């Protein structure tokens, strides 16, 4: 006779999200992710240090301050993404680590992509204006 009871109360554990799930990844992949996250942290730290020094050495107007603040957001998110992905170096809560890291990387490349897009449109308009003027 089956042990399954269709009238049993729902279990909270059964409804809980699958937290702390570890992926079946090889040590090589984990080492690669760990190396990449470390490079991300170091690269972001260098960029942030450079921008902080520039704040003291360069005379900024309001537009420059706004642009520096926007560009400063990118290394901050690279740093946070690297910190999140570093957790995948050892088997543990890989699902959440990957989700958090990818979310922060998405912000990084969204801002970078937007800036490059605006730069390209601005350049095209400048060239067009030069020919029309």
């Amino acid at each position, binding site marked *: 006779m089956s042990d399954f009871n269709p009238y049993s109360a729902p279990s909270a554990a059964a409804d809980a999200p*699958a937290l702390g*799930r570890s*992926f*079946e*990844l*090889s040590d*090589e*992949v984990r080492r*690669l*992710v760990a*190396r*990449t996250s470390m*490079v*991300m942290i*170091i*690269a*972001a730290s*260098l*960029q942030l*240090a*450079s921008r902080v*020094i*520039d704040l*003291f*050495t*360069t005379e900024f107007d309001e537009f420059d301050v706004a642009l520096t603040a926007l560009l400063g957001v990118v*290394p901050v998110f*690279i740093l946070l993404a690297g910190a999140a992905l570093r957790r995948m170096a050892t088997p543990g809560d890989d*699902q959440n680590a*990957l*989700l958090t890291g*990818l*979310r922060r*990387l*998405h912000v990084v*490349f*969204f801002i*970078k*992509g937007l800036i*490059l*897009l605006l*730069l*390209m449109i601005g*350049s095209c308009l400048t060239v067009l204006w030069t020919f029309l003027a």
Partner: protein
Amino acid sequence: MDNSSPPYEQTLGLDHETLGVADKLGRWLRITGSIQLALAGLAILFFGLSAACGLTTMLSLGLVAALLMLIPLLIIGGYLLQGLRIQAAGEQFANLVDEQHPDYLELAFGRLHTVFVIELVIGGFWLLESLLELGGQK
């Protein structure tokens, strides 16, 4: 027998939220990589032609001066390579969303590793420049 998808036990089993984020990340990686590639390519063309035209003048200033004047070209070359790798990483994330095979995760992070190594080198260069400027002002 369908051999196009990997066996179930080889998939990562990512949830919908992670797949959604990976899909958006892949899209913006491809957009960013393509634009960076285009802009860096144009810049290399422009600087390359300028460097080729001024080669004699550069060499008359001395070999060290000529090499220093080629540094912007190297930086732009770095951005060009970075654009290629960003684009490639975006394609791997798109493949990861489709098939969830661990190999695509490895390939994506392999490309991202190159992207951020270039970011580290360029970041180090800018930090050096900022420090030299700070030292010069004092």
